[in-house]
């Protein structure tokens, strides 16, 4: 049993991972639903480019994403420098940066899940809502949103799981700072580099798998239950 006792450092990494992933999902949820809706419903010039940009983090090496973030959002970066001057907020080498990196990496998964569920919504129901006097915003919140809830839930869990496993972009963008940006995967990596880190690495490895499994099964159960409720079978 002694084996499963987490050291304070390992515990810190787990706590940080959950915290960062939580924020990453929370912050990207609104924009994610908006982008998914635009991609699902609107036709505009340059749509393929926007679609490509959203999916880019899925296909380029995470280190590239991290490096681009560093260039754009670092303290002297294109956007980051301006932001720091205006508000004093910076993403450089702190947990907010780690959350931003996680959010960017998880964004495509969130958008995909939500977009698929929006495309599956019967637009006839939205037309019906219009003839019943609902304007565009009204009908989105009273018809579309409740119907895509299972898709949003799936997106959230996928994005959360992806954030937990984020490594390359994070270490490139915000480095590996204990207590600030050293999440589970980074801590695991650090432990493997240490002479007597095997036991710790194994513990973190098991924790990672357990957390991921819990997330996936919960989402599956919740999504099924939600779907049944929406279809009025409960």
């Amino acid at each position, binding site marked *: 049993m002694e084996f499963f006792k987490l050291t304070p450092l390992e515990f810190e990494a787990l706590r940080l991972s959950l915290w960062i992933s939580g924020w990453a999902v929370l912050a990207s949820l609104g924009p994610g639903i908006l982008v998914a809706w635009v991609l699902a419903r609107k036709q505009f010039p340059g749509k393929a480019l926007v679609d490509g940009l959203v999916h880019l983090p899925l296909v380029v090496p995470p280190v590239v994403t991290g490096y681009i973030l560093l260039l754009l959002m670092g303290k002297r970066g294109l956007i980051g420098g301006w932001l720091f001057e205006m508000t004093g907020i910076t993403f450089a080498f702190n947990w907010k940066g780690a959350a931003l990196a996680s959010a960017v990496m998880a964004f495509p998964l969130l958008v995909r899940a939500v977009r698929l569920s929006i495309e599956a919504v019967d637009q006839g129901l939205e037309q019906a809502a219009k*003839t*019943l006097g609902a304007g565009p915003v009204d009908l989105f919140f009273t*018809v579309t949103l409740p119907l895509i809830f299972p898709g949003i839930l799936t997106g959230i869990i996928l994005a959360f799981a992806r954030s937990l496993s984020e490594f390359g972009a994070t270490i490139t963008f915000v480095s590996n700072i204990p207590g600030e940006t050293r999440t589970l995967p980074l801590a695991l990596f650090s432990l493997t580099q240490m002479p007597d880190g095997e036991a710790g690495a194994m513990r973190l490895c098991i924790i990672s798998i357990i957390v991921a499994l819990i997330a996936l099964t919960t989402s599956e159960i919740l999504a099924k239950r939600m779907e049944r409720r929406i279809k009025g079978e409960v």
Partner: protein
Amino acid sequence: MLDIHLKKDYGNFTVETDFTSEGHGVTALFGHSGSGKTSIINMIAGLVQPDQGRIVIDDRCVFDRARGINLKPEKRRFGYVFQDGRLFPHLSIRSNLIYGMRRVKPGDRYIQFDQVVDLLGIEPLLERHPATLSGGEKQRVAIGRSLLTSPELLLMDEPLASLDAARKKEVLPFIGRLSSELSVPILYVSHSMDEILNLADTLVFLSQGKTMAVDSLETVTSRPDFQQIAGPMESGVVLSTLVQGHDSERGLTRMEFPGGVLKVPIMGAAVGQKVRIRIHPRDVAVALKRPCQTSFQNIFPATVTDVMKARNGNDLVNVNLNMSSPTGSETGSPAESPAYSSIVSTITRNALRKLDLRPGMKVFAMVKAVSICSGNTWDGNSWEKS
């Protein structure tokens, strides 16, 4: 007052319609599938934008291309009952019903919740979810949901098409009562004459995107071009009749129409009730002399008005006839129509040649009693009121 002028080009298909209708009662848009009925109703609802035209309901213009008016669907205040119901699956029946009602200013509501629930008999369904309802129940709820927006016009797009015959009979009486009891003007899309026979006051007859005729059912269905286009199932001529009496001994009901009295197999309608019936051209025969000793129950003197080729088949012709009763119609006729009724008979080309029928000839029209379909004879009270 309904004033509709619309044109929309779909590339290989153009929908063009012009009609005005008296704004009360039921106006039926009738035509084959693909005749543009649903396009027209979608344009009126604002779900599809016409290329040209205008839509005016009771001096309220909701669309006018020339003046740049185009109200959004949610501002038009038209109810829309879709063919497939389209109830919100995530809401209870009660929430579905009040969805539109809540979005109407209390001052604009002229139809009340309890009134609609009573009329449609949906009280037991209120706490249930759409997934647990039968097709007929869903359609009744969909009708109720549209009604509760207190619409200035109710659009119905084949609301019975997805239902089987028994469910149709369940829903149809309610529709008849909407226009009479709640005085909601209804625009009703259908491809089935049986549905609209005792429902519609005005018929807009569409074919291939064009409006062929706008008039009463009796007038439109007796047009030669209607006979040609409507096809064998729907081409019966509509007669407006008044139930004169039942003869239970002989199993006959006597129905008076402008032009004579029809004897039909006994039916449930009450004496004095107005009933529209449909007479199929294939069930009408023509004779040059009054036949005797025949099984035909209904023989009327008639005048040939027109002879033309029938739709399907080069060997059939339609003979249009005017039936006039020998005594004239001295009693109060059901409608303000002339003292004769038009009827059509489909005969073979060979028969035409043998009888040598020409417009103006005096003949006898024979109608088989058993073939007369009375459309929907629900308890009837509803029809009397309209």
